[in-house]
C-alpha cells in the first residue's frame, strides 16, 4: 500500500477527508461534551441518544416524510427522551460521576435492546443526499465532506453564542457553578438542569438525524459507531466544552485523515487512539486545560 502520489488532487482529497473526519468527531462529541462539561455527568448512553435521533429520523422518512422534516423528528425525539431521562434518572447522579457512568451504561443496554425488540433488526438505509464533487480522478461526498463539517462549525458557534450571550446560557452556567446560590437568585435550577440536559440530548439527536442518511444500515447497535470518537474527543478537549471540542476534533481528525489516506483506515484508527493516549498523558487537563494555563502564563508575563 504505497502512499498516493502528491498532487493538487490528492491534497484536495486529503482536505476533504479531514473535513469529513472533523465534522464527524465534532458532531459525535458535542452532545456528550455539553452534558459532561456542563453537568459533570458522563453519559455512556450517548450512542443510544444519537441512535434515537437516527430512528426518529428514519421512521418518519420511511413513512414518507421529506428528509429535512424527518430530521426534525429525530431531534425532537432525542430531546424529549433526554428530558424524561434527566427527570427520572440523571437528576440523581449530579456530582456522582462514576455512578452516572454505570447508570447510563445500564440505560444504554435497555435502549438498544428495546429498539431491537420494537423495530426489529434493521431499518432500511437512507441514501446520502447532495451527491459529490469531482476533481481529477477523485470525488468526495458533498454531504459528508462539506455540509456536515459546516453544520458542525455552526453548531459550535451557536452553542458559544447561547452559553455566553443569552440570558438562558448565563443562567445555565450559574446553575452549574453553584446551584444553591443560583436558586437564591431566583433561577429555577431544576429547569436549568433539565434544559441543559435536553440541549445535550437534542444535539445528540441532531447528530443522529444528520448521520441517518450517512450511516448505511440502521441497526440497534449503531450507537457504538459514535462512542469511541466522542469519548476520546471529550477528554482530549478538556474542561472547556466548545473550544475543547473544536480543538480536539481538529487535532484528532488531522491524524485520522492523514493516516487513513496514506496508510489505510486501520492506521488511521490506531493513530487516532494513540494520539489520544499521548495527548492525555502530555496534557492531563486536556487541550483547553493546557491552553488556559498557557494563557495565564502569557498574561502574567505581560
Amino acid at each position, binding site marked *: 500500500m504505497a502512499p498516493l502520489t502528491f498532487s493538487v488532487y490528492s491534497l484536495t482529497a486529503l482536505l476533504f477527508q479531514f473535513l469529513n473526519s472533523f465534522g464527524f468527531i465534532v458532531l459525535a462529541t458535542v452532545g456528550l461534551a455539553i452534558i459532561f462539561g456542563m453537568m459533570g455527568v458522563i453519559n455512556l448512553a450517548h450512542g443510544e441518544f444519537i441512535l434515537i435521533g437516527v430512528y426518529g429520523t428514519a421512521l418518519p422518512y420511511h413513512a414518507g416524510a421529506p428528509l429535512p422534516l424527518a430530521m426534525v423528528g429525530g431531534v425532537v425525539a432525542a430531546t424529549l427522551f433526554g428530558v424524561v431521562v434527566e427527570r427520572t434518572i440523571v437528576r440523581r447522579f449530579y456530582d456522582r460521576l462514576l455512578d452516572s457512568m454505570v447508570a447510563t451504561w445500564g440505560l444504554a443496554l435497555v435502549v438498544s435492546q428495546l429498539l431491537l425488540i420494537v423495530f426489529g433488526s434493521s431499518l432500511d438505509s437512507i441514501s446520502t443526499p447532495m451527491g459529490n464533487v469531482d476533481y481529477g480522478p477523485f470525488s468526495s461526498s458533498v454531504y459528508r465532506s462539506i455540509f456536515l463539517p459546516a453544520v458542525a462549525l455552526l453548531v459550535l458557534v451557536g452553542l458559544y453564542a447561547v452559553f455566553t450571550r443569552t440570558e438562558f446560557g448565563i443562567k445555565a452556567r450559574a446553575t452549574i457553578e453553584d446551584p444553591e446560590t443560583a436558586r437564591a437568585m431566583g433561577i429555577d435550577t431544576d429547569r436549568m438542569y433539565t434544559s441543559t440536559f435536553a440541549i445535550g440530548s437534542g444535539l445528540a439527536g441532531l447528530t443522529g438525524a444528520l448521520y441517518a442518511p450517512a450511516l448505511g444500515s440502521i441497526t440497534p447497535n449503531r450507537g457504538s459507531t459514535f462512542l469511541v470518537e466522542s469519548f476520546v474527543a471529550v477528554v482530549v478537549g478538556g474542561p472547556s466544552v466548545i473550544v475543547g471540542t473544536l480543538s480536539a476534533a481538529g487535532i484528532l481528525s488531522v491524524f485520522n485523515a492523514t493516516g487513513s489516506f496514506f496508510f489505510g483506515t486501520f492506521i488511521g484508527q490506531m493513530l487516532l487512539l494513540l494520539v489520544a493516549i499521548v495527548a492525555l498523558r502530555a496534557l492531563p487537563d486536556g487541550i483547553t486545560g493546557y491552553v488556559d494555563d498557557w494563557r*495565564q*502564563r502569557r*498574561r*502574567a508575563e*505581560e
Partner: protein
Amino acid sequence: MSTPQDINVRQKPAVAATGGGTSTILATKQLTKNFGGLTAVDGVDFSVAEGEIRCLIGPNGAGKSTLLELITGQLAPSDGAIYFDGEDLTGLDTHKRIDTGISVKFQSPHVYENLTVEENLRVPLQRTDRDVDRVLAETLDRTALSEKAETGASELSHGEKQRLEIGMAVTLDPKLMLLDEPVAGMSVDETDDVADLIRSLHDDGMTFVVVEHDMEFVRRISERVTVLNQGEIFRQGPIEEIEADEDVRRIYLGENA
C-alpha cells in the same frame, strides 16, 4: 533557578530573621507564583528561625495561603527557591518535603470524613516509626478527642475537626508546622484550647508558621508577625510594633481595630 546567590542564602540565611530563634530553619528566596494575570506571591524572601512561632497576616488575597502551598509543594513556584533545614526543596514533590520534617494543616478542614477519629490519626502515624499506640493515645489526649476516638469524623463539630487535623499533622512529629487559619469558626473556648495546644508543642521545640485573621489569637501565640500584602512582604516584626504601624492599620487592621 539555582544561582550562586541562592546557595548563599542557604549558607548564610538570616537576612530578615533576627531575634526569635537561633538559626534559620525555613527560607524562601525570591519566591514567585503567578495565576493568570494575578501574581499571588511576588518575589518573597521569607525566613523563619528554628523554634519560633511566626504568624502571617494580611488582607484576603495577599498570598498567605499560596505561600503555604508553595512551601508544601502543592503548588509549583513560577520562580524562586525554598530551603528548609539546609535542603533545597524547590523541585521536590510534596511527600518528600513532608519527609524532611514539615507538616501542614490547611484552611478548611480536610479530615477523612468516612474514617473514625482514630483511623484518621493512624493514616499519618503509620508512616512514622513512632510507637503507634503511645502516640495515638497521647495525641488523642492532647487534642481532647479521646472520647471521640471511635466516632466517625463526619460527625465531629467544626472545632473538633480542626483539632483533629492539627492532631494528624502533629503525629508526624515535624520540625516545622504550617497552620492555615487554625481557629477559624471556633468558639472562644475552642480557640483557647488550640492556643494552649500550640504553646505546648512549641515548648517541645516545634517551629510554627500560622496564618490567621483573628488578631486576638495572634497576640496570644505569636512572637513575630509577617504582614503580606499583594503578594509581597509588607512589614515584619514583633506583634506590638505591627499593630501600631499606621500603614498596616490602613491596609489591613482597619482604623478602630
